[in-house]
C-alpha cells in the first residue's frame, strides 16, 4: 500500500498541525440543546458511542448542563483550551461564536450553511473568516458535517467503523461523506480519517490532501470535490506525491449540466473535464464518475499492492455463471484489460483434472456449482496451480453466485472460504504477485445477503477484496492498472 514517506521536518510540521483536528484532546460543541436533539446533541452522543476519551465541553448561553455534561457560556470560558469545536448555530451567530474563542480554540468545524453558497451571503462568510482569524481559530466549512477518525475516537456518523484502516478521504459534500463512510464501511473499507470541507472558507481540500500525503496513517487517498480552489497548488501536491499513494478523485460538475448543478450547490466554478483527464495522465490521479466506482477503487487499493514493474493487464476469471463471465470478458476488455486464452501446459493440466461435465476449461473458466464443490471448494487451489504452470497472470477474479451456495440442499462445507484459502496457498507456492479479487453475486434476497455479508467478512480478513458484480471488479482493476502504469512511467 502506497510508498514510504520519507520523514522531513516539513512533513512532521504538517502532521503536528493537523493532529488537534483528527485526534483532539478536548472537544467543544456549540449548539447542543437542553430540550431537543440537534446535530450538536448528536455529536456529543457520537463521541460517547466512539468512547472518546478526552473532555467534552457543551457551550450554552444559559444552561448549566447539556447531555449530562457541564456546560460553559462561551468557547473562551472552558476549563482547558479546545482542540476541536463543533459549531451548529444559525449562520448569523457563527462569527460571534468564533470571536469569543480568544485564542483558545485550534479548529472550529462550522456545520451551519447559508454563507458562500449564495452570492448575497458571501459577506457573512467573510465576516466568519475575520472573526476566526482574530480569535486564532482555523475553520473547516462552513456548510459541512464533520470529521471522522477512528484513532482519534471522533465521528459524526452513527455506526461508523471503530477499527482504523489506510483510507483517508476529503469530501466537499457532507452528505456524500456520510455515504462514503457508511456504504464504504459495509464494503470493508477502513479509514484513517475523513473530513468534509463544505465551502472551504479557510482550510480546503488542498490543505487536507497535503496532510494526507504526509500522514503515515494514510496509504490511500480519496477526494470528492466540485471546485478544487487553487488548481495549481493541487497539481503541485500531486506532482510532489509522485504516485507514492494512490489518489482517487470523484469530481462533481465535469459536464456542462453538472457544472450548473455545482454552481447552485456549493458555488463551484468548474473547469473542463478534458483538463482533469490530462491531469490523470500526468499525475496518476484516478478519476471516477460514481460513488460506487469511488468506493470500489478505494477498496481495491486498500487490499492490493500496486506493482510498478508490471501494470495489470492479463486477467484470469473463474467461477460459476457462464453467461456472466462472457459478459464480464467484454467488460474487462472495455476497461483496458485482457482475458487471454491459457497456454498449452495450463490447458493440459486442467484437462487432466477431469472436471464434471459442463465445465469450460479455457479462460474464463466456467465452473458450475458442482465443480466448485470438489474437495469442499479447495479445487480452486489446484486450478490456480494449473494456471501458474503456463505463467503468472496479473490478476485472478473469482466469482461465486451466492444463491447456489445458500439456497441449494448441499451446504456441507464453507465452499467460498475454501476456494479463496486454497487459491492463496497456490499463490504462495508459486511465489506469485497476482492480484486476487472475489465477486460475490447476490440475488438481493435477505437470506443470500446475510450469507454474502458473512462471506465477505471472512474473505476480506484473508486479504482479498470483495466486489458485488464482475463489472465492479473490472472498474477497480482498471483503477489499479492506471496507478501502476503511472508508477512504471515514473520509474523510467
Amino acid at each position: 500500500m502506497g510508498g514510504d514517506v520519507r520523514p522531513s521536518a516539513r512533513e512532521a510540521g504538517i502532521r503536528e498541525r493537523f493532529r488537534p483536528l483528527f485526534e483532539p484532546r478536548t472537544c467543544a460543541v456549540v449548539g447542543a440543546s437542553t430540550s431537543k436533539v440537534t446535530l450538536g446533541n448528536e455529536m456529543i452522543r457520537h463521541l460517547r458511542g466512539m468512547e472518546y476519551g478526552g473532555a467534552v465541553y457543551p457551550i450554552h448561553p444559559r444552561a448549566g448542563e447539556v447531555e449530562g455534561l457541564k456546560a460553559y457560556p462561551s468557547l473562551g470560558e472552558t476549563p482547558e483550551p479546545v482542540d476541536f469545536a463543533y459549531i451548529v448555530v444559525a449562520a448569523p451567530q457563527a462569527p460571534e461564536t468564533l470571536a469569543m474563542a480568544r485564542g483558545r480554540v485550534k479548529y472550529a468545524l462550522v456545520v451551519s450553511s447559508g454563507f458562500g453558497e449564495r452570492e448575497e451571503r458571501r459577506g457573512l462568510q467573510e465576516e466568519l473568516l475575520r472573526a476566526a482569524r482574530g480569535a486564532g481559530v482555523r475553520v473547516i466549512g462552513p456548510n459541512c458535517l464533520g470529521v471522522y477518525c477512528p484513532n482519534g475516537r471522533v465521528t459524526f456518523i452513527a455506526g461508523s467503523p471503530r477499527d482504523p484502516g489506510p483510507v483517508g478521504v476529503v469530501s466537499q459534500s457532507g452528505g456524500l461523506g456520510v455515504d462514503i463512510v457508511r456504504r464504504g464501511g459495509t464494503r470493508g473499507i477502513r479509514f484513517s480519517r475523513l473530513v468534509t470541507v463544505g465551502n472551504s472558507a479557510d482550510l480546503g481540500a488542498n490543505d487536507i490532501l497535503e496532510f494526507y500525503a504526509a500522514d503515515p496513517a494514510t496509504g490511500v487517498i480519496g477526494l470528492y470535490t466540485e471546485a478544487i480552489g487553487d488548481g495549481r497548488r493541487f497539481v503541485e501536491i500531486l506532482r510532489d506525491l509522485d504516485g507514492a499513494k494512490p489518489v482517487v478523485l470523484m469530481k462533481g460538475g465535469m459536464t456542462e449540466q453538472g457544472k450548473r448543478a455545482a454552481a447552485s450547490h456549493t458555488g463551484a466554478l468548474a473547469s473542463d473535464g478534458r483538463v482533469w483527464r490530462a491531469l490523470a495522465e500526468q499525475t496518476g490521479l484516478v478519476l471516477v464518475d460514481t460513488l460506487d466506482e469511488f468506493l470500489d477503487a478505494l477498496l481495491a487499493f486498500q487490499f492490493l499492492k500496486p506493482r510498478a514493474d508490471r501494470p495489470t493487464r492479463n486477467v484470469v476469471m473463474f467461477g460459476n455463471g457462464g453467461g456472466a463471465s462472457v459478459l464480464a470478458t467484454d467488460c474487462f476488455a472495455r476497461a483496458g484489460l485482457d482475458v487471454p486464452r491459457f497456454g498449452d501446459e495450463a490447458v493440459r493440466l486442467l484437462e487432466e483434472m477431469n472436471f464434471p461435465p459442463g465445465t469450460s476449461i479455457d479462460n474464463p473458466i466456467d465452473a458450475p456449482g458442482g465443480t466448485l464443490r470438489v474437495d469442499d471448494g479447495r479445487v480452486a487451489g489446484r486450478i490456480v496451480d494449473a494456471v501458474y504452470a503456463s505463467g503468472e497472470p496479473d490478476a485472478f477474479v473469482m466469482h461465486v453466485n451466492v444463491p447456489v451456495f445458500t439456497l441449494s440442499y448441499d451446504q456441507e462445507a464453507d465452499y467460498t472460504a475454501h476456494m479463496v484459502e486454497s487459491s492463496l496457498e497456490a499463490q504462495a507456492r508459486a511465489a506469485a504477485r497476482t492480484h486476487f479479487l472475489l465477486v460475490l453475486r447476490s440475488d438481493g434476497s435477505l437470506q443470500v445477503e446475510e450469507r454474502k455479508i458473512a462471506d465477505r467478512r471472512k474473505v476480506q480478513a484473508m486479504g482479498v477484496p470483495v466486489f458485488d458484480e464482475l463489472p465492479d471488479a473490472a472498474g477497480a482493476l482498471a483503477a489499479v492498472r492506471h496507478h501502476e502504469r503511472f508508477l512504471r512511467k515514473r520509474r523510467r
Partner: protein
Amino acid sequence: MDVDAAIGAALRAGRGVLDEESGKRVLAANGIGVPASMSVAGPDGAADAFAGLSPPLVAKVVSPDIVHKSDVGGVKVGIGSAAELESALREIESAARAHTDDIEGYLVEEMAPAGHEVVVGGSTDPTFGPVVMFGLGGIFVEVFADVAFRVCPIAPVDAREMIDELKAVKLLRGARGGIRASEEAIVDTLLKVGGEGGMMLSLEGKVTEIDINPLIVSGNGAVAVDARFVLKRD
C-alpha cells in the same frame, strides 16, 4: 526580436492579438521553424520579394481586420514566378479592399514542404493555468475534437503520450499511404509551447492563448504556417 516590444505595440494599437508576421517572429525566436518570408508594402515589391526567396511561394494579406485570410481571398499559393507573384498580390489587394481599408501590407513566404497539418496550441485554464493542446488539423480538430491536453509544464514523456492519445494517430504514422510524420519534431514543438520554460510559461501574464494552426510536419521537421497569439489585456 523583442517579444515585449511586439506585444506592447499591439496592445498600444488596441489589438488583442499579434499579427501573423510578429507571431511568427516570436515562434522563430523560440526555436520553432517558420517559412522564410519577406514583407512587401504592395504589388510593386513583387520582384524584390521573389528574388530573395525560393519558389513555390505563398502570398497573404496583412490586416488587423482580417483574421480568416483564406475565407476572403486573402491567400494565394503555388506562386512560381515574379510575374505570378505580382498578379497574385493585385488579386489579393482587390479582394481584401472589399472588406477593409486597413491593409498594412503583404507577407510572401516559401511554401512548407508536404506533410501532415497538425495543431499545437496553448490556453489558460481557469483552474490550472497554462495548458497545452495537440491535435490533427482540419476536421479532426474542428469536427471530431480529437485533441489531447496537458497541464504545463510538460515533460517529453507527456508530449509523446499526447501523440499516442489521438484517435487519428495512425494517420500521422503513415496509414493510408501517407507520409510518416516526425514525432520528434512534434514533441519538440509541444515542449517549446508547453514545457518547462516554454512560451505558455515564459509569456504567462502577457499571452493567454497560442494557436499554431497549421503546423506542417514532414518526415524530418515541422514548420509553423500560421500563428496566433492572444494577448492578455489589463
